[in-house]
């Protein structure tokens, strides 16, 4: 059972939607035009129950099947990135400094394609909740939608999402039960000393040795505090201090990111980072202020739902094109909040050898949109089979 014929027949329509969205990228929670376009399409499919303004510009639409049954959530993200579109395509972004370089235009299109098919056929028992969310690339729109109560309000029992995957062969679907993507925390350490003349260090409290010592000691969290079997990244990605050759700066700051897959390891990393920053500052007579922001939690697939989704994927793209045992990856994803709220699975859909996500030349591969839409549609028909 490959791509659904009636969806394949709509491939040009899907491409037109996708390219329209690509030309008008919007950032964070400000997905006003994108949401309006989504609503317009959903209405044209005959979907009546549409809820807007969730997480500011998020949309939840309900498709009723022919028979009563459970409700399953399908999620697409809608937001773009604050960067230039260097794809060189005719449908490149018309808005300077904003670009759909993570393929959320494609994700939205795939979910619209599934919605059109499901609204026309309704060959399932239960309901589909289409979740169009803003602010995946910062802001955690997925978390806000969960916090605003969509899971309870719409009785959603399971959730599924797809992300396109440059580098995976076109049309391959890959996932894994358990940890799939990392948590992503951010930190900033502000160090305060006493500035002065570079020739008279004795009159100053130099924050630079303190910053250096901190960076050295932070290495030991990964190398000494965590089992080699566990997975943790602590990256100091910014060091800023000073303005001139002959001035000892009064302050310095470090910033970076912490990635992990397990809550215990995440807690340990934050605790050690705070201890190291504060104590190293004290050693050098400075003070340190740690700002630790917990970003997206790890994306952890539920085993049963991941196995089920992989089975559906095998029917759509062929068993030889599906893997359900991939290694986890260190980037993060706010679908993690939905997977914390409900059982479900997140899958990657290969789009062939293209520039990677967040690269200015990245463009979603329109050839995979009917595959993703077919996967979503078959998932619903398989999970919610008609009884008669």
């Amino acid at each position, binding site marked *: 059972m490959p791509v659904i014929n009636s969806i394949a027949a709509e491939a040009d329509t899907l491409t037109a939607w996708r390219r329209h969205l690509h030309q008008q990228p919007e950032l964070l929670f400000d997905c006003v035009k994108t949401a309006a376009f989504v609503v317009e399409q959903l209405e044209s499919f005959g979907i009546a129950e549409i809820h807007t303004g969730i997480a500011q510009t998020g949309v939840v639409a309900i498709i009723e099947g022919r028979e009563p049954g459970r409700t399953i959530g399908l999620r697409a993200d809608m937001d773009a990135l604050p960067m230039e579109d260097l794809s060189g395509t005719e449908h490149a972004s018309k808005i300077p400094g904003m670009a759909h370089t993570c393929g959320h235009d494609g994700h939205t299109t795939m979910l619209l394609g599934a919605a059109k098919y499901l609204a026309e056929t309704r060959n399932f028992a239960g309901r589909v909740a289409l979740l169009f969310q803003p602010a995946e690339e910062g802001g955690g729109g997925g978390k806000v939608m969960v916090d605003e109560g969509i899971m309870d309000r719409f009785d959603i029992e399971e959730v599924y999402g797809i992300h396109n995957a440059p580098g995976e062969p076109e049309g391959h679907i890959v996932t894994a039960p358990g940890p799939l993507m990392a948590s992503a925390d951010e930190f900033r350490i502000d160090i305060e000393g006493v500035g002065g003349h570079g020739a008279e260090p004795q009159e100053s409290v130099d924050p630079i040795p303190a910053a250096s010592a901190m960076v050295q000691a932070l*290495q*030991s969290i*990964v*190398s000494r505090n965590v089992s080699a*079997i566990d997975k943790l990244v602590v990256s100091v990605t910014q060091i800023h201090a000073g303005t001139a050759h002959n001035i000892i700066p009064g302050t310095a700051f470090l910033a970076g990111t912490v990635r992990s897959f397990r809550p215990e390891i995440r807690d340990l990393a934050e605790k050690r980072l705070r201890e190291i920053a504060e104590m190293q500052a004290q050693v050098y007579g400075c003070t340190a202020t740690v700002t630790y922001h917990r970003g997206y939690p790890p994306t952890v697939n539920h085993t049963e739902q991941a196995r089920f989704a992989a089975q559906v994927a095998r029917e759509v793209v062929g068993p030889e094109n599906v893997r359900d045992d991939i290694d986890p990856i260190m980037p993060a994803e706010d679908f993690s909040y939905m997977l914390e709220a409900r059982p479900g699975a997140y899958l990657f859909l290969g789009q062939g050898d293209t520039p990677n996500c967040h690269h200015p030349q990245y463009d979603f591969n329109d050839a995979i949109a009917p595959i993703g839409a077919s996967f979503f549609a078959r998932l619903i028909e398989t999970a919610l089979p008609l009884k008669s």
Partner: protein
Amino acid sequence: MPIVNRIADYAEEMKTWRRHLHRNPELSLECHETAAFVVERLRDFGITDIHTGIATSGVVAIVEGQGEGPVTGLRADMDALPVDEETGADYASEVPGKMHACGHDGHTTMLLGTAKYLAETRNFSGKVALIFQPAEETIGGGRIMVEEGIMERFGIEQVYALHTDPSRPLGEIATRPGPLMAAVDDFELRLTGRGGHAAHPDTCIDPIPCALAIGQALQTVPARNTDPLESLVVSLTVVQTGSATNVIPETAYLAGTVRSFDPGIRDMAEKRIREIVAGQAMAYGVTAELDYQRNYPPTINHAEQTAFAVEVAREVVAEVVDDSVPSMGAEDFSYMLEARPGAFLYLGQGEGPFCHHPKFDFNDEAAPIGASFFVKLVEARQPLQR
């Protein structure tokens, strides 16, 4: 199907063997008395095809089954550790400074128990090669036995071994396909500067800041150079320098260990450690002599043989873990697994002091379980051809 009845019947006898071995620990390749005891028991069982002096004091004995069939190698290690025993047992080590703190006395006993049953019953086709090796805790007696050609000489096709585990409940068997234990490499580093009076550092080349800088920079090998999905430990475990408050020392001595599973990560770690040492030495004007020794390779279980051993284990014991978390410890059975397909398994002996601890003692109740596992493995792999 729990412990084999016939083995349960001579559990007391096995206990006397184990306690005799426990009283008489021997180190490294010099397991002569242990080997002599092993040979004496094997002869008692009617086994005649016994080969001694392999890897100095290792023993290989062949038990013939009935009819043609494959040859399976079962391995036990015999050597003890340079530890002063603190168990207080009435069968405690009689040799000061040596003790069986890793349960090799128990491993040898389990394999002897297996040999007794197999020699008496011979309910299998083909042959079993009983491999008693020295020097697991030191220079790789397992490697030497492989290098001396035991696999070819005795036609061994597959190899299996058990290790007692004091972190698991008695009778639980645990393993996993693929990497189970890490590769271990060791390094020693001597830094030479120019010593002198601590009041005149300008006339010296102080090796201490260089040693500290190396220690700091080594942290970045796991933290910055290793794929976070891979596993690597770099532990600097020895830093020794200096003798007085007012003397800048001439030299500093550092040593440590490196643990990994993946050959690429292992190569990378050695390369980075060499670069860090050379670079920091140059930065501080010190000369560095680095001795980097590659020791045991990772212990990698073969998937098919592991699945088979797990199936056998499920017939013998109630609790079997087939996805045990890999350990960063190391094991020289790895060389046998490089030479032949096979599997290494842990046998729980109940929770107690950990291996290498002076209060560790092998639990005699585990021995009949391990022997039952070995004999069932042989009988399942090499059934009689009727």
